[in-house]
């Protein structure tokens, strides 16, 4: 982890000296994480791809302003969350946030059985819908902590709020997510 951070810092230094190829290393290293974070924020594959490209363009343009006070990944997360939040607001305005996971979400898991696939797809669809119904702040903290497994301290640094605030916000966000998924879980439990 430390070596990766150093590697990020080294790539950033090279990039700041004008070696554009170093940016490719950073892109390849963080593209999947950023794309998935953005995708879970937006719930739309194409929008997520476009927004992720914008995130990296913005990072490239602003790389001169990166002073190395935080990890490059944290800095990149912040850019990604800003872009995703803005895009999400635009999508909400246009009311085009209908998620159709069947059409857009490619499966990277090993091929399961047919019944298992249907159940997983249904769960994912509900979870994604629940995430999309959360407020951006709640969705952000859940995705950073539960999906990306970002430490509390880094989340606090990223969102520029105290760690205690992160914990309380996470608790509130989980309660909200549970409420969103309550009907599904209640129905499943009742059926069982």
């Amino acid at each position, binding site marked *: 982890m430390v070596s990766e951070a150093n590697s990020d810092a080294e790539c950033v230094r090279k990039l700041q000296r004008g070696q554009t190829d170093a*940016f490719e290393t950073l892109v390849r290293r963080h593209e999947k994480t950023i794309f998935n974070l953005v995708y879970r924020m937006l719930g739309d594959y194409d929008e997520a791809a476009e927004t*992720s490209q914008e995130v*990296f363009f913005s990072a490239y343009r602003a790389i001169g302003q990166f002073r190395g006070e935080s990890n490059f990944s944290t800095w990149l997360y912040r850019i990604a969350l800003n872009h995703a939040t803005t895009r999400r607001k635009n999508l909400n305005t246009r009311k085009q946030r209908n998620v159709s996971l069947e059409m857009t979400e490619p499966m990277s898991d090993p091929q399961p059985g047919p019944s298992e696939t249907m159940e997983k797809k249904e769960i994912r669809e509900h979870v994604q819908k629940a995430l999309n119904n959360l407020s951006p702040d709640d969705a952000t903290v859940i995705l950073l902590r*539960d999906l990306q497994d970002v430490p509390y301290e880094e989340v606090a640094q990223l969102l520029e709020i105290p760690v205690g605030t992160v914990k309380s916000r996470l608790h509130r966000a989980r309660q909200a997510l549970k409420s969103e998924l309550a009907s599904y879980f209640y129905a499943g439990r009742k059926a069982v």
Partner: protein
Amino acid sequence: MNCEEVANHFSDYLDQSLDTATMTRVATHIIACPLCRAESNDIAECIDQVASLPVLDLPIGFAQRVMAHVREVEEKPTVWQWLFQSWSLKVPLQATAVVIVAVLAVFLYQKEEPLKPYNSMNLASQSAPPVATEEKEQATTSESLTPSPVSPAAEKKPQAIVQAPTEVAKPLADASPRERLSKLAAPNQQPQAPAALKAEVESRLEERKEAPRRPPIRALEVATGREAGPMSGGAFGFGIGLPFGDLRQLAPRSAPMALENSLPLGDRTADFEFVVRRRPAQRRDNIESVDSVRQSAEADATTPGFAARRPAPPAAAPKIESFAEIRLYNVAPEHFEIFKKELAAEANIESESKIYAKENNSLPNDRHLLIKVTILQPDSAASSR
């Protein structure tokens, strides 16, 4: 620890971020309380569901597209480079634009009629009937010798007469020197023996070919107070011949005058002002008879076309009506003395004032002098002598 307190610690309990003592108390309560246990399980399931969301593969070629765009942006010049490049590009463009605007301005300036306000500027109290009479007389005498291209226009309105020189100027400019001389001579023909005049023209043409040339005196008549008046005299074409061929001659403005460019006065003040009085016709005849050979030889040696333009003395001097005339000339500073001499030779200089001296006592060398000449009628007493 009650259910409410435990509920506040669910997230930390599931993240195992509580201290050991609190963890133990929360765990004890959850085991004992089915509601809190159910709630804890639901939250844990939510966390698991989110954490188990699959990691999606990126679109194919995502990194390549990003890098292609980055390299494209990299090749674009920075703001400073853009400014520098545009500066190097804009300077010639702006210079070209300035030149085009300047040429257009000069073109438009030259195209408009500059002398319109001055065409009607006649300070003399001249009356139309005498002018018309004189013009008719001149037209008659001209037509009796050679056909004049200007004379038909002279019989029309005065405005038409003003335009006549311009119409004549074109063919003159394109004509050969010999043709030009003959054309120029035509309107100024006076009642003189045609054979003698032709002989004189021919002889002076020959002389001119052999005589050393001096640069022609550039005197541009700027404006006159009486454009179509009978006093115009073709000899006032200073740029080609002597400036004051005949101040006393009553001839319509003719072709030589048309060769000069009339310039607008604008707000410019004359540098010199002369008040001259025409010599009476009788005396002019005397002068002509005495000095004609010498003057014409000098003039002809220096100015092409003068002989042809120089009008012959009329057999009978026409009556001069009472009027005054103001003319303005543009003369190069080095030609001022010649201008003055020839003015004195042609008319009596009654007064001379140097207007430029009010501002600066030195003669301006950087531009042409604007000379205002007020031509007065011949003295009746002298005329009767």
